[in-house]
Every structure is written in C-alpha cells, then in structure tokens.
C-alpha cells in the first residue's frame, strides 16, 4: 500500500460510515476497526525497512507555482505514531461497539472517528510543515465534533467549545510560527528544516518563532497554563476520551515538540519554556488528579500530568531525556487508554463515575478490576510495569541534569513529588472503587461486560506487563527505531532493564511509593467526610477562570468597539465610512502634497463649460430638493446623467455615451415607477432645539461632502495634467483586430479579452433582477399609498381603462393618450431594427449587446407605459425569466465550447467565409457570447421594470380597497 492510500483510507471510511443506517453499530465498528486494522498491519509490515533507518517518502505536486508539494514522509518516529494511531484506533473501535448505546446515532460517531484518525495520520506523516498545520487544525475540528457528540448536553457543548477555542488559537499561533520557521529555514520541507537546526537557533527571529510554535504545541497537549480544556473535554463519549484525549490527539503537541526537537531544542529559551511548562503541568495535574471525584476527571488530570512529564523530558535538552520521552509516550498511551476503557466499563455497568459512590466493585467485576489495577500500577510506576521503566529514566534524568544549582535541586524534588501524587491518585482509583464494602445505591447492578468489550483492555494491559517485564525484548527495537530520528539519528547509550542497582532513581521511586501511600491514607478520612471537595492550593492557578474572564472581556471589548465603530443609525455609519475613505485617500498625500503636472491642456470650449455649469447647478439642486420635491430632483439628476453622457461622447467614448444614455432612460423609468409608493413628505416646523441640532448635523455633513468633492476634483485634476501612463492598454489596441476580430476595441475587450468579467457581470445582473422579482412577489405597500394617486382619482369612474380598472378593463387607453399609443406601437419595430443594427455592428463600431439589449427593453417598456400592463401582456407574452435563462446558457455555452475544443474558457475563434451576395464575412464566436449578453440584459431589465409595474395592478384589485375617500372631482 502506498502512503497516500494509507492516508486516504480512513477518510474514505469516514464517508462510507456517514451514510450507513442509524443503528448499524456492528457494521460501523467493523468498518472503523477494519480500516484501522488494515492500516496498522500495513504500518507494522514497514518495520523492516524503517528499523534499518530508511525513510519512506512520497511526494505529489500540489501548488508547483508556490513550490508547495504534498509530501508524505514516514521515519521511525512517524512510524511509531502511525502504529499508535491505527492500533489504538482498531482497539477503540471494537470497544466503542459495546460502549455506544443503540439510541446513539452511530454513523456520526464513526464518521468523525475515522476522519479524526485520518487527520491524525496526516499530522504524523506530513513531510511538509504547512501540510502538518493543515491536518493539525483538522484534528482540532474533529476533536470539537467528537467532544460535542452528545450535543443535547450542555457540558458537552461547553467542553467542545472550550477545546476548540484553546486548541484553535494554538493552531493559529502554530501556523504563524511555522511560517516564520519556514522563512528562517528557507523551506517548509521537514527534511530541510530538521537539517538546519544550527541556522534556526542563531536567527534573530528564533525567540518569536519558538514562542509561537510552542503555543501551538502546549495548547494541544493541554500544558499549563492551557491545561483546563482537557478535563472539560471528558464530556465526550469514553472511546473518544480514550482515543483522542489520552492516546493520540493530546500527544500531537508532544509529537510536534519531539518532531522539531533536532531543529528547535538546545537553547536556553527552549529549556525554560518547555521544561518550565512541563514541570508546572506535571505537578499541577498530579495534584489536582488526587482530588477528582469523577473517574474520567481523575484520568484527565493524570493525563495532563503525564503529558507534562513528557514535555519536561523534551525540554531538558538532553538526548537521553528525549529517548525517555518517546518511551514514556508509548507507555502512557497503553496504560492510560486501558484505564479510560476500564472507567468506561465501570460507568457503563454501574451507571455512575463518581468515586464517592463506587465501592467494592472487585466482587462484581473481578476481571475488569484486575485489569484496571494492573494498569493503575503502571500509571503509578510500580516495578514490573512499563510505567516504572520510563519513570526511572525520568528520575535519572532529573538527578543527572547539568544546570544552575537550584534547578539541580528542584528538579528531583519536583519529580519525586509528582511520583508521590501519582501513587496517591492511582490508589484512589483502585482502592476506593474496587475495595471496601459493596456499593448499594448504584443506578445499575454491575456485571462483567461482554467478552469483546474487555478484549481491548486486556490486550493493552498485557502490553503493559510484557514491556514491563521483558523490556529489552519487547520494546527495545521499536524504541530504538522511533527515538533515533528524534535525537537526530544517533542514539545515546541507555539500557532497558528492570534492575540497575540500588541507585538514586530507585531511592526516589521508593520514597515516592511510600509517601504516596501515606498521603493517600492521610486523606481518606477528610475525603470521606466531604472536607476535601476541591484540590487545595490549585484554585490559585485556575486556568479556566482566566480563560473565561479573557473570553468575557474580549467579547465585551468587541461589542463596545462594534457599538462605537458601527453605530446603529445608518447615517452615523455612513459618515464614519466616508470620513475613513477620505482620510485613507488623503493619508499618502500628506508628506508630499499634491502638485499639478505639465501636460498640455485641451483647448477649452465655451459650450462645454456652459453645459457643465448647468449640470453642476442641477447636481446641487438635486441635493437641495431630494427631500421634498422628488420628481424635480429626479429630473435634475437626469440632467447630470445626460451631461455625463455628453462628456463621454465629447472625449472619444461613443460606446460609453450610448450605454449611459439608454441606462439613464431605464433608470429614470424605474425610479418613476417607484416614486408612487413613497410617502408624501410635508415640511414640518421643527422645535428650536431640534432645528439647531439638525443644522449642526447638516453643516458637519456638508463639510465632509465638500471635503470629498474637493479631494476628488484635486485628484482628478492632478491626474489629468500628467502624461498618459504607458500601461497595458497598448496590448488591447494592438491585439483587438488580429486576435479579437473586431475594430471596436472596447467591445472586443468586453466580449473577448475580458469576457470572463462580462460573464460575471451579466450573472450579477440576472441575480439582481431575480432578487427584485422575488422581493416584489411578497411586496406589501404602505397602507396610505394603496389608494389611487390623485391624478387617477380625478378620472371618470366609468372610464374603461386599466389605469383605473386594472383587472377588468376590456380596452385600454380608451380616451386617454390614443395618439401617442398608436405612435409608440409604431416605434416598437423601428426600435427593434435599431437594436439589431447596434448589435450587429457592435464588434466593429459603437454598439454591442449591452446597448442593443437596453434599447429593446426601453421599446417594450414604452408599450407598457402608453397601453398599460394588461393590454401589453395579453398581446405580447414577454416571459423575461426565459430570456434570462437562455442568455446565461448561451454565454456560458460559448465559453464552454472553447473548453470542449481544448482552449481556455471563453477563447474566441473567428471564422472567415466568402458568401455569394454578402462577400467576405467574419464571424467571431464572441458574437454568440454577445447574444447571451444581449438576451440577459433584455430579460433582466424587463423583469425588474415589469415586476415593479405589476405592483400598481396588484394593489388595485376591484373591490380590494375603497377607491377614493375624496369626493369625485375634488381638487
């Protein structure tokens, strides 16, 4: 099996698991277990080459332009983790089959479970740091989903949320750190990063990078001060706790520390941060574990403490300590996972995990009790167990460390103290639960669990014993293989034996053992009397409280900033927005000022000046009148639009002028249609205080407006007096005819060079018109604007026209506008011919799909205006929605046609034919694209305008509303 297949296998399994039936526990666990087992066997089979020091590498091109490849790389250390992930996965899948109840939706569980397995494999097999971060984030995500598996429970939701926030923030820090690391090392390839350790440690950015990477690793492995999320994550189903939160995911942090050990370790900063965090976590976790009443809580704190131990070892900057860390990593995974599973069995069988209620279970669950006791002994570091060996190595490291004197004293003391605590909580786990009088008030009467539920625990406990008794034989080669890459290839001398003589570590072990028993005995009474509910002293270092305080204040600050920066009233928001834009534009000008260029100016024209003076007066007038005189304001805005259009034609932009002219017409009709639904506005006398405030506000707005206007004028003038920039436009001018097949460069750009842009644009147009259509289907006009407008109220009531009797009029335009109606009907064919001409010449002369489409729409709208909605629609079903769809299809199909012929999307092809009568004919495929543009423009413009026009018809259903309250003919 290739590495990529191994990596993809769990993800494929995850997709399969998601679609299985709701209660398929057997199939699901078979699938998950099968995937894990196949993977594990395959990984185990690689042991031969890997143990000879080979590194399996597969590389796939991913983003070659950025030099990024998907690199899968398995060396000894990654091999160990892959085996751990898959082997544990197989055992936990089996266990989960019996743990999950028939009511639980298992497809979700196993789907996430397998996806997590794949992500974790991705982390350990990554040969590229960015890829590692990607999978790292995936593990956080699936951990979140699995903790929140029972999402009806509040504690599960909160625990999942906290885990995601802490590990997610760590992941972001890690990403930043890895980017820095890649920058320092010159590559994101793990191989090269590991080889340039010296350069990395000398670099000026090393401290910053180190802190960021460590933030990622320490949050993931629940190290002090980020340890608080792990106990909360125990709300997850127990298989998840056993798998993610003791054996694999929380190990990702220490995995990363060990992975980057050759590149990052060996500095003072590394020692103080990593070893410091590890030592704090080791002590704090062990201390808190003693006082937990929840079985899983105890195990969670114990996990934190053991992770601290591994971190501390990795922080000691010694090769031997790193080997010990890897060894303890393996051991911890075996005994802790088995303990979690045992705790799950107890919970499952007795219905509670409260140590205070459980008692004497050894009589009811003899097998489970034995297994749990052996595993606890390993956790406490009792001789003949695997935990003992790695603990001895740890003690030896603390004794023989070479550092400042107080550290040399403090470390062994810390180690012994932590050992003492671990003995105490291991005793609490076993003695309190399994011995004593049989518990009487349990929710269920415990029985031995099914045979297969116990099997994973048995296998793991067997591993603990075998490794503990025959270490050199059972684990020696594996440890050597997996630890070698961590220390850079050359292993230090160490011996895996139970008996090393009567030395300092053994004495420390003995002290810890005795002190632990004494501590446990001294605490039994106060504990039973309920005097020690919470861990003493540890309250001072409550990470969770700090986390919640920080979260609360972040939220409050954000809310306050939001209130300040985005005030509810729109006017204030817009003011801030415009002011910010003005500032941003003015900022770069501050140091240099703005000076005029020296380009020769165009000779002035009196006519042009006069026209613009009128238009500017209209703009100011529109601003003045828009509140009380809407129609006047609309007219004046229209003047500005027309003047813009004249400016375009004056300065050699015929296409723009055409488009602007027709758009101007359509916009004006549109707004005229809307005016009808706006409330009548009367000038009201304001109170003096209000008036003063309103004046101040208007003055402020006017100043800002003048600032923006002046700024734009100055910028435009500064640009206009400078020579033309020699930019990319020359390219379009040169290529338009030979490659685009048209002489009108603007049109060729729209339908050819920038065709993709135009496709997006017509899509926006279509979406907008559909939105308008949808919004107006449920339109509820304001009550007072439902009545007929005064002009129509004054018409004869028996006049049969649809302006009055919208639904029932048999003939329209009777008596009103008869002459214009006839004329406008005559305009339609003429307008269609004009549009056809504009469309056809578009590629070579001013014109094109946009303008033609707008002309056609205007022609149709004119019919609506003079003849009324019903008359038009009874004679001419327009169906704008079909136009829309057909146009989009036509444009897209033209683009895809190029793809089908092997060219990039929207490539134009020009055909040349010589036809009788016509002579030489050029036909560019852009023409079909332009047909699409034309059709979409017609469809969307008609859709928007007719949707608005229909409102007038809908609102005046006969009998729907009283026609007029005013007497007929009243002024």
């Amino acid at each position, binding site marked *: 099996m290739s590495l990529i297949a191994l990596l993809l296998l769990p993800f494929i399994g995850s997709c399969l698991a998601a679609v299985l039936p709701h209660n398929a526990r057997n199939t699901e666990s078979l699938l998950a277990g099968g995937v894990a087992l196949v993977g594990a066997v395959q990984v185990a089979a690689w042991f031969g080459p890997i143990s000879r020091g080979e590194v399996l590498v597969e590389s796939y091109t991913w983003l070659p332009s950025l030099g990024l490849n998907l690199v899968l790389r398995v060396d000894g250390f990654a091999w160990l983790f892959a085996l751990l992930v898959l082997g544990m996965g197989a055992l936990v899948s089996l266990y989960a089959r019996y743990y999950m109840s028939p009511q639980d939706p298992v497809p979700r569980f196993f789907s996430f479970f397998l996806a997590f397995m794949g992500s974790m494999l991705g982390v350990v097999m990554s040969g590229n740091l960015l890829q590692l971060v990607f999978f790292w984030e995936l593990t956080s995500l699936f951990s979140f989903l699995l903790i929140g598996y029972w999402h009806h429970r509040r504690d599960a939701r909160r625990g999942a949320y906290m885990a995601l926030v802490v590990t997610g923030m760590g992941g972001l820090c890690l990403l930043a750190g890895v980017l820095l690391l890649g920058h320092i090392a010159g590559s994101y390839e793990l191989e090269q990063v590991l080889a340039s350790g010296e350069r990395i440690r000398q670099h000026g950015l090393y401290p910053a990078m180190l802190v960021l990477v460590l933030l990622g690793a320490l949050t993931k492995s629940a190290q002090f001060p980020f340890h608080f999320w792990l106990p909360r994550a125990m709300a997850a189903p127990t298989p998840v706790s056993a798998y993610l939160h003791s054996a694999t995911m929380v190990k990702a942090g220490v995995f990363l520390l060990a992975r980057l050990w050759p590149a990052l370790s060996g500095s003072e900063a590394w020692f103080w941060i990593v070893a410091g965090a590890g030592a704090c976590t080791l002590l704090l976790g062990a201390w808190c574990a003693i006082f937990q009443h929840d079985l899983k809580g105890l195990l969670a704190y114990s996990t934190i403490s053991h992770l601290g131990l591994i971190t501390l070892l990795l922080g000691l900057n010694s090769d031997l300590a790193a080997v010990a860390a890897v060894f303890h990593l393996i051991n911890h995974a075996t005994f802790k996972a088995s303990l979690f599973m045992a705790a799950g069995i107890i919970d499952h069988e007795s219905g509670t995990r409260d140590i205070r209620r459980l008692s004497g279970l050894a009589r009811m669950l003899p097998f489970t009790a034995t297994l749990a006791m052996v595993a606890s002994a390993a956790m406490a570091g009792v001789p003949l167990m695997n935990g003992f060996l790695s603990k001895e190595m740890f003690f030896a490291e603390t004794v023989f460390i070479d550092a400042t004197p107080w550290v040399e004293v403090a470390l062994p003391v810390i180690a012994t103290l932590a050992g003492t605590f671990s003995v105490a909580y291991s005793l609490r786990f076993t003695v309190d639960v399994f011995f004593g009088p049989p518990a009487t008030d349990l929710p269920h009467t415990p029985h031995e669990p099914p045979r297969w539920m116990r099997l994973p625990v048995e296998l793991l406990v067997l591993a603990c014993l075998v490794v503990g008794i025959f270490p050199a034989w059972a684990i020696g080669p594996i440890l050597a293989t997996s630890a070698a890459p961590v220390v850079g290839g050359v292993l230090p001398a160490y011996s895996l034996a139970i008996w090393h003589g009567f030395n300092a570590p053994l004495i420390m072990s003995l002290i810890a053992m005795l002190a632990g028993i004494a501590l446990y005995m001294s605490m039994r009474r106060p504990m039973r009397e309920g005097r020690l509910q919470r861990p003493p002293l540890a309250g001072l270092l409550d990470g969770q409280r700090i986390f919640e305080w920080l979260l609360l204040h972040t939220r409050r600050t954000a809310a306050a900033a939001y209130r300040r920066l985005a005030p509810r009233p729109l006017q204030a928001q817009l003011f801030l927005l415009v002011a910010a834009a003005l500032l941003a534009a003015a900022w770069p000008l501050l140091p240099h000022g703005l000076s005029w260029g020296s380009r020769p100016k*165009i000779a002035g024209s009196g006519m042009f000046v006069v026209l613009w003076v009128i238009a500017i007066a209209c703009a100011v007038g529109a601003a003045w009148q828009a509140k009380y005189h809407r129609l006047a304001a609309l007219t004046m805005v229209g003047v500005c639009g027309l003047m813009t259009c004249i400016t375009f034609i004056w300065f050699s932009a015929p296409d723009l002028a055409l488009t602007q002219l027709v758009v101007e017409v359509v916009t004006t009709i549109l707004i005229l249609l809307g005016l009808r639904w706006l409330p009548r506005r009367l000038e009201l006398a304001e109170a003096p205080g209000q008036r003063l405030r309103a004046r101040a506000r208007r003055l402020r707005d006017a100043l800002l407006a003048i600032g923006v206007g002046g700024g734009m004028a100055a910028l435009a003038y500064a640009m206009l007096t400078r020579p033309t920039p020699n930019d990319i436009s020359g390219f379009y*001018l040169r290529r338009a005819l030979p490659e685009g097949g048209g002489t009108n460069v603007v049109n060729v750009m729209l339908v050819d060079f920038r065709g993709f842009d135009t496709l997006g644009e017509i899509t926006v147009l279509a979406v907008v018109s559909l939105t308008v259509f949808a919004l107006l289907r449920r339109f509820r006009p304001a009550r007072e604007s439902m009545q007929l407008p005064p002009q129509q109220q004054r018409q004869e009531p028996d006049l049969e026209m649809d302006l009055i009797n919208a639904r029932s009029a048999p003939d329209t335009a009777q008596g009103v506008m008869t002459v214009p109606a006839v004329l406008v009907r005559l305009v339609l064919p003429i307008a269609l011919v004009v549009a056809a001409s504009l469309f056809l010449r578009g590629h070579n002369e001013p014109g094109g799909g946009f303008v033609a489409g707008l002309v056609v729409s205007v022609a149709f709208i004119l019919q609506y205006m003079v003849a009324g909605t019903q008359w038009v629609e009874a004679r001419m079903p327009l169906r704008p929605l079909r136009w829309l769809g057909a146009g989009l299809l036509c444009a897209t199909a033209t683009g895809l046609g190029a793809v089908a012929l092997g060219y990039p999307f929207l490539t134009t092809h020009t055909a040349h034919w010589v036809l009788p009568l016509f002579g030489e004919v050029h036909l560019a495929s852009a023409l079909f694209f332009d047909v699409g543009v034309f059709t979409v423009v017609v469809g969307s413009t008609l859709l928007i305008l007719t949707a608005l026009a229909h409102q007038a018809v809908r609102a005046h259903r006969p009998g729907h509303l009283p026609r007029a309250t005013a007497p007929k003919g009243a002024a």
Partner: protein
Amino acid sequence: MEEIIATAIGALAASGVWLVLRPRTYQVIMGLCLLSYAVNLFIFSMGSLFIGKEPIIREGIKQDLLHYTDPLPQALVLTAIVIGFAMTALFLVVLLAARGLTGTDHVDGGEKQP
C-alpha cells in the same frame, strides 16, 4: 477643459455624498446616482482625455496610445454603468419593501433615532 471636468467630478461627488448622508431613503438613492456619475467620470478621466481619438481601429493608423484613446477605462466604466443600474434597481426595491414593512422611509426604519 481639464479644470471643468475636475470641477464637475468634485461637484457631483460632493452633492452625492451629502445626499447619501441624509435620513430619507429617496435622498440616499439620488445620492448614489450622483456619486456613480462622479466615480464613472473619474475612472474614465484616468485614461486621459482626447478629442476625436475613439478606440475604433482605422486602417493605416498606428495602433498605440498616441493615436487612440485608452480603451481600458472605457471598458471598466461600461461594466460599472450596467452594474450601477442593477444596484439602483435593487436598492429601489429594498427601499420600497422597507417602506411597506416599517411604514416609514427613514433609513433606520424608524422615525425616532435611538
């Protein structure tokens, strides 16, 4: 001519901004129209102004920026005009719907400011 174009852009922009900052939806929509004229003219003028040099290739005239005006801003502005129309239409309908729902044409959907 450059002076008058710059002044026109400034006047349109100023009127537009002033209207956009007003409390009534109709004022805002008028303001956006004026503002879009200003911005379109501004983008258009970035390609420099020429008289009688339409970007339509004629035979025998060298195809460079000395003999034709810059087609790029024109293509951009053409797109902008059409999109501007679409946005005006959408805004108008939202305005009408808001007026129907809230009973007022104030931009905040209520007469009293908080």
